[in-house]
């Protein structure tokens, strides 16, 4: 059992250790050596934000059997994801480490657990919590740590130049950590979590704190020696102030990085690839993970490769064609997906889709992650340990009305042989010296362009994928792409012009037009059995060109051509949907949703013949109806390991066990004590 669990099982707990670190940065690089007396070590003592890897360790009270501890594996490399070992001594034995900086270090900030004291240059300093600061004024420090008891091992977490402002029980006046989610049924937001700290600081630092920039990282941990909660990351959100010997800091979690407009539009997309080898992945998962990363949230990486041969466009490299959401913030979109898209259509290549439930968890303060694993109860709370338990039942919802837009995209069928590609959407005469201008509906998807002579004789077909910026013209605007027809020159030295534009081998080539800065890449043989069946994707070298210059096609060749507009099309259809539950209640209007599917078709104009439907997350209004209308709030001892959206077993006074989901947890550390205010919604949300 963990130390936190042991303490929480008592009526009167020991005071919890709180460790809050404001990272102010330093240029001093550290190296570490001389820890051969350690039991295990990776020597990573300079990464304060990497968690210590929880090991199945029998020291002290042993370890919890909740899956949070792993067996020691010397081959696991230290990282943000894997955690680190730091330097861990033998049980009951002292451990040494030598820290060396490349410049004089004024003082060292040390985080360590299981140590009673540290000796530096013959001077021993007692360690009462998990952090100690030592004056140094040298480049090298030889440190020796003594364990706090015979059954504890010293675990050194960080030894860093004191560039960080460390707040612990010695100087903390009050810290309030508000970890928030929104589990309301109809239109929840993605709220920010907050950290507010008041610290006793008797040196006048009013001038120094004035230069602390916004978004300076600040981390929070609490717990007991050897069993601290995971590091929660926050970012300074306002002016750090110092008044009457009290330093006040406010910070918010990474959600605020999502509070900006999408850098691209979310749409029904295309890559030009029909990658049948792509694994079936839950796409709402990808979208959320992608959006979180794309918004620039520090330290967040996408765990899966993005495949978007169907569904929503989320490449980021190429703007989408069919815009679904535009001008909204990452935060709004993620909130919507988190609430509505609880169901994913996992496609199987040729067979019917199967649906799977999606669930949201938090991986750090406020960073959501979509998973298809239903959350299990992680915590148990006894109602008899809670105070002010208030249960509230909102109005029961019987019916939900909404509008769903289905974006159905028809594409050439890659599985057919020969492949049917020509969804001819229209033709435009293209006369030398004149422009051929085509206006498309906003919802149109990728268009491929083929050229044919005006007499109807076909030119070798070239498909210019993703011509979103070229021929899609806002009304009344013109533009041109000179090189397209007459002067496109393969870089391999072969020549070409508008009437002879073809490629004669399967080797990917690269076309470049220096005048326009157009760079053509990824020339892909669509089907090597057909010599004229080519397409190529391109991108612009000039960011200003991409998406900004309205363009038409100016004929430069001697002949006039007919521009055949060939391609995929997205067919949006709106549908009023009503979902109802078999119970009494009110009718509500839920936010409109969108979803889509991809049709591989053999024909377009004579009607879409559906062969394969690839899926994507669909609006799961019925999941909203399943959400409980019962919420509760209560006062509790508090556990800093808990995150919003964690599921807990609520052991009621009448002896029954119920599953609830944490919505908000506000932990207050004040006067050495810890208290939590909790709100929760019944059931697993």
């Amino acid at each position, binding site marked *: 059992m963990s130390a936190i669990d042991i303490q929480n099982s008592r009526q009167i707990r020991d005071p919890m250790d709180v460790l809050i670190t404001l990272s102010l940065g330093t240029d001093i690089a550290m190296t570490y050596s001389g820890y051969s007396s350690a039991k295990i070590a990776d020597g990573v003592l300079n990464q304060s934000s990497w968690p210590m890897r929880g090991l199945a360790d029998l020291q002290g009270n042993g370890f919890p059997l909740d899956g949070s501890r792993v067996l020691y594996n010397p081959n696991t490399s230290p990282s943000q994801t894997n955690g680190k070992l730091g330097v861990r001594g033998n049980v009951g034995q002292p451990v040494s480490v030598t820290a060396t900086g490349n410049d004089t270090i004024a003082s060292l900030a040390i985080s360590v657990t299981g140590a009673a004291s540290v000796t530096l240059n013959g001077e021993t300093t007692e360690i009462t919590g998990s952090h100690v600061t030592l004056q140094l004024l040298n480049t090298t420090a030889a440190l020796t740590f003594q364990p706090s008891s015979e059954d504890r091992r010293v675990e050194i977490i960080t030894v860093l130049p004191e560039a960080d402002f460390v707040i612990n029980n010695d100087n903390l006046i009050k810290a309030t950590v508000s970890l928030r989610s929104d589990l309301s049924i109809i239109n929840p937001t993605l709220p920010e979590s907050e950290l507010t700290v008041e610290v006793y600081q008797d040196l006048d630092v009013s001038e120094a704190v004035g230069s602390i920039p916004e978004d300076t990282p600040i981390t929070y941990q609490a717990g007991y020696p050897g069993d601290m909660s995971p590091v929660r990351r926050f970012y300074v959100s306002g002016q750090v102030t110092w008044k009457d010997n009290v330093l006040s800091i406010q910070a918010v979690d990474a959600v605020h990085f999502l509070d900006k407009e999408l850098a691209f539009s979310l749409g029904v997309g295309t890559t030009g690839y029909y990658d049948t080898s792509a694994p079936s992945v839950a796409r709402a998962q990808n979208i959320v993970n992608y959006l979180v990363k794309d918004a620039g949230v520090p330290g967040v990486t996408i765990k899966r490769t993005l495949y978007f041969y169907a569904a929503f466009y989320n490449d980021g490299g190429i703007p989408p064609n069919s815009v679904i959401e535009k001008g909204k913030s990452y935060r709004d979109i993620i909130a919507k997906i988190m609430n509505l898209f609880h169901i994913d259509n996992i496609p199987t290549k040729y067979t019917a889709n199967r649906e799977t439930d999606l669930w949201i968890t938090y991986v750090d303060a406020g960073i959501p992650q979509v998973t298809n694993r239903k959350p299990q109860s992680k915590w148990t709370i006894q109602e*008899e*340990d809670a*105070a002010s338990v208030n249960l509230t039942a909102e109005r029961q919802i019987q019916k939900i009305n909404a509008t769903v837009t289905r974006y159905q995209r028809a594409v050439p069928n890659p599985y057919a042989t020969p492949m049917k590609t020509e969804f001819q959407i229209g033709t435009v005469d293209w006369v030398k010296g004149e422009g051929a201008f085509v206006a498309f509906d906003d919802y149109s998807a990728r268009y491929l362009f083929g050229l044919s002579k005006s007499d109807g004789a076909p030119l070798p077909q070239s498909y210019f994928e993703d011509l979103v910026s070229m021929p899609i013209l806002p009304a009344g605007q013109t533009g041109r792409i000179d090189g397209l027809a007459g002067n496109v020159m393969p870089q391999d030295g072969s020549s070409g012009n508008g009437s002879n534009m073809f490629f004669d081998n399967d080797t990917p080539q690269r076309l470049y037009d220096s005048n326009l800065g157009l760079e053509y890449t990824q020339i892909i043989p669509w089907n090597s059995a057909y010599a004229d069946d080519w397409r190529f994707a391109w991108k612009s070298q000039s960011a200003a060109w991409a998406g900004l210059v309205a363009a038409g096609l100016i004929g430069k060749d001697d002949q006039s051509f007919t521009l055949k507009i060939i391609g995929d099309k997205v067919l949006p259809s709106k549908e009023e949907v009503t979902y109802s539950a078999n119970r009494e209640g009110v009718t509500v209007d839920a936010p409109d949703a969108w979803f889509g599917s991809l049709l591989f078709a053999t024909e377009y104009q004579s009607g879409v013949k559906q062969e394969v439907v690839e899926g994507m997350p669909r609006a799961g209004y019925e999941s909203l109806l399943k959400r409980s209308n019962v919420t509760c709030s209560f006062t509790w001892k508090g556990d800093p390991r808990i995150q919003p959206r964690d599921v807990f077993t609520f052991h009621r006074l009448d002896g029954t066990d119920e599953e609830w989901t944490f919505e908000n947890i506000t932990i207050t550390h004040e*006067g050495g004590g810890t208290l939590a205010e909790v709100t929760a919604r019944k059931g697993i949300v």
Partner: protein
Amino acid sequence: MALTALDYITIDGTQIYKPPEFAPQIEDIYSGEYTTCTGKTVGDCIGWKWSDMTLQWDALPQDMVDVLVNMSGEATLVFDSPLGTQTEKIIRSSAVQLRNRNTIRGQTIWRNVSVAIRFINAHPKEASS
């Protein structure tokens, strides 16, 4: 019988007779306290302190009374306890009560002297887990 150091307490450096009923008590300090829905008190024991107490003497000479009367704001109390010699910060929390003034062989003695004090030091709790 000669008096020893154990027969005195020291306030702000001046020895005063130890009150005959001098028995300081230790109390725990709680924080994050609340009462559960079943009436149980739950909280964190963050440390301990010496309990507030009233010092009472049957008789005290004028110079020792002066020490009590002159306590203003924070004072230092040194006393022996089962935990060893303790040095604690205290404040006077009542006026010095003086009932009778007697003069014995030219020396002023006050009878039934009492003063309430409050210990202001808090001591951290040693980790017990």
